[in-house]
């Protein structure tokens, strides 16, 4: 779908066609302005969701650990933009962004984050296990690399069922040193499965920099060990991510098998609550704050006449309002009933298919 007149008809400062940059990203000719604006909104939702989570933590309202993806929003939203609800994703401990990008409701997410009965997992899972299976999100995962073979399995199911879908698998640079990564990529390759491996390389696994843990310069350099393309993408560019994933989807649909995409990005916040930031410099962090993926996408949208500054502001405010409402929904929600603790371990007999 190319943008229609209607999509860009909003008032204000959208650049006139003559001023627009040459060589627009492919995503700009595939997705409508409305779709692209929704992507922008998702980035704001992620940012605000995590700021709200941080705030709840600082005010002593939360409990478990949390891993924030602030700074990585383009990677999550760009990768999910070409996916539909019947495509699968698997996510990680740093999964709020992926989950919102795949279309989850922030209110039920915040409720889950807060351990409430109204959360996606009825409070059983928490931040690290939010899943939205109906929307094709097979869940965040507390185990580094745990989701990689699961995504391959989902792709196997897609292939067996003859569906046109893909499974997209998010993981970090640290996960690329797990045996599960190796086994899963090998299997995906030999069976030519429709799976897209998206490594979000944010330069650190907790405190451990890739220089000290990874035996190659780029995670994508490992693709040759599995005879699949290895693509390096600027993970702070939503459109670069979307374009790379679109190419991988085409490859997968053509029966050519998996692609490994390395999204070079950066997490602005610490690894988790316990991070005292002993392992990176303020300068490094600030240099990445300056490359903010949301700002960048806004500028791009405006430059290409796909949104006006006023629209962007409205989108941001709508996202803020939505997260405020999500927090309120969560705060107003009940905690689970302790008497109910066993519910969900096994499928009840009457539900058996």
């Amino acid at each position, binding site marked *: 779908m190319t943008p229609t007149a209607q999509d860009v008809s909003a008032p204000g400062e959208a650049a006139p066609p003559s001023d627009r940059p040459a060589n627009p990203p492919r995503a700009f000719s595939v997705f409508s302005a409305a779709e692209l604006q929704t992507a922008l909104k998702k980035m704001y939702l992620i940012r605000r969701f995590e700021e709200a989570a941080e705030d709840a933590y600082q005010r002593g309202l939360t409990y478990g650990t949390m891993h924030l993806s602030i700074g990585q929003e383009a990677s999550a939203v760009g990768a999910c933009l070409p996916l539909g609800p019947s495509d699968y994703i698997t996510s990680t401990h740093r999964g709020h962004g992926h989950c919102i990008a795949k279309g989850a409701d922030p209110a039920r997410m915040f409720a889950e984050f807060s351990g409430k009965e109204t959360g996606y997992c009825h409070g059983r899972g928490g931040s690290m296990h939010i*899943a939205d299976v109906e929307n094709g999100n097979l*869940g965040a995962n507390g185990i580094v690399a*745990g989701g990689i073979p699961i995504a*391959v*399995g989902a792709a*196997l*199911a897609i292939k067996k069922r003859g569906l046109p879908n893909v499974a997209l698998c998010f993981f970090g640079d640290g996960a690329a040193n797990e045996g599960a990564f190796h086994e899963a990529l090998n299997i995906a390759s030999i069976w030519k499965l429709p799976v897209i491996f998206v490594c979000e390389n944010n330069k650190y696994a907790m405190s451990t920099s890739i220089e000290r843990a990874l035996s190659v310069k780029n995670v994508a350099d490992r693709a040759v060990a599995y005879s699949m393309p290895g693509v390096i993408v600027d993970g702070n560019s939503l459109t670069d991510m979307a374009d790379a994933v679109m190419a991988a989807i085409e490859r997968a649909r053509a029966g050519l098998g998996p692609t490994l995409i390395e999204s070079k990005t950066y997490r602005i916040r610490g690894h988790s609550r316990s991070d005292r930031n002993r392992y990176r410099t303020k300068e490094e962090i600030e240099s990445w704050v300056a490359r903010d993926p949301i700002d960048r996408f806004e500028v791009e949208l405006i430059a290409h006449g796909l949104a006006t500054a006023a629209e962007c502001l409205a989108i941001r405010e709508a996202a803020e309002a939505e997260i405020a409402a999500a927090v309120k929904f969560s705060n107003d929600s009940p905690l689970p009933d302790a008497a109910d603790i066993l519910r969900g371990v096994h*499928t009840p007999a009457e539900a058996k298919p």
Partner: protein
Amino acid sequence: MTAPLSATTGALPIEPGASRELSFAEALREAMGQALEADDRVFLMGEDIAIYGGAFQVTLGLLERFGHDRVMDTPISELGSAGVAVGAALAGMRPILEFQFQDFATLAMEQIVNQAAKIRYMFGGKCSVPVVFRAPTGSGTGGAAQHSQSLEAWYAHVPGLKVVQPSNPHDAKGLLLAALDDPDPVMFFEHKLLYKMKGPVPEAPYRVPIGKAAVVRQGTQVTIVASAIMVSRSLEAAAILAEKGIDVEVIDLRTLRPLDTETIIASVKKTTRLMCVYEGAKTLGIGAEIAAMIAESEAFDYLDAPILRLGGAEVPIPYSPVLEKAAVPQVADIAAAAERLANKRV
């Protein structure tokens, strides 16, 4: 419930017309063949299960009938394969993954225990993971320490898993079909020494319910609780003791998780003496749970003697046959221990 096994042969009485003699391996193969025929979602994965027919030939011939899409050789990647099975199950399939030996499932514990067993609960009961993990277990084939383990108790400790371990061809088929019906993950353990055991197996598909033990020999003086190969050994021991006038009841657990506590408690109340026979290391083997369960149950008051456990020796399984035999309960050990127990009084 299954008809009780005959005390001497461990075989089920043949219902005329309903069943033929099949080996344990053939019974499993028939169950998988029927499941593959009946349900498009079912497929098999494992190392060398296709052309080779599996290390123990359990899947022999299924490739020819169902093709490589349904009978898939995996690379030697236990963790990855387990994860693939979990993912496929989440996405609507019903995989059966064969570990070539139970020992190698140690490589896949993460996916089995952190993912398969927990996903349904962690996700708030919104999905299920219908996967069956099959694995040959136990000693007796000279496989030594890394090819002979009986770690069933590990899985039986994990909420979210079901653990099944048949002792005869009939139950092998019926429990495997029941495992395949189950929407949640099932560990299915097959004792290697049973693969060639013959017994009557009805041809039409049937289910042996998960979670139900079987009283395979009625008795009044001592209850022996066993599973897998220990069932036939216990029946043999019971036959020996019968000649000495000691009347032993033998319970075949069939399912290790969830335990059929009712059947065990009822038996102990009747016999007042309990012995647990199992191949895994004695400490924290399945008999530990059974003994502990009885010791805290209403049956405690009925006990006329301490609860005896005859488990595996506290060693890695040794290679040399003379040591290997000594490492796990044999018929004579069971008979001697049961006799001691029968004569003990509080």
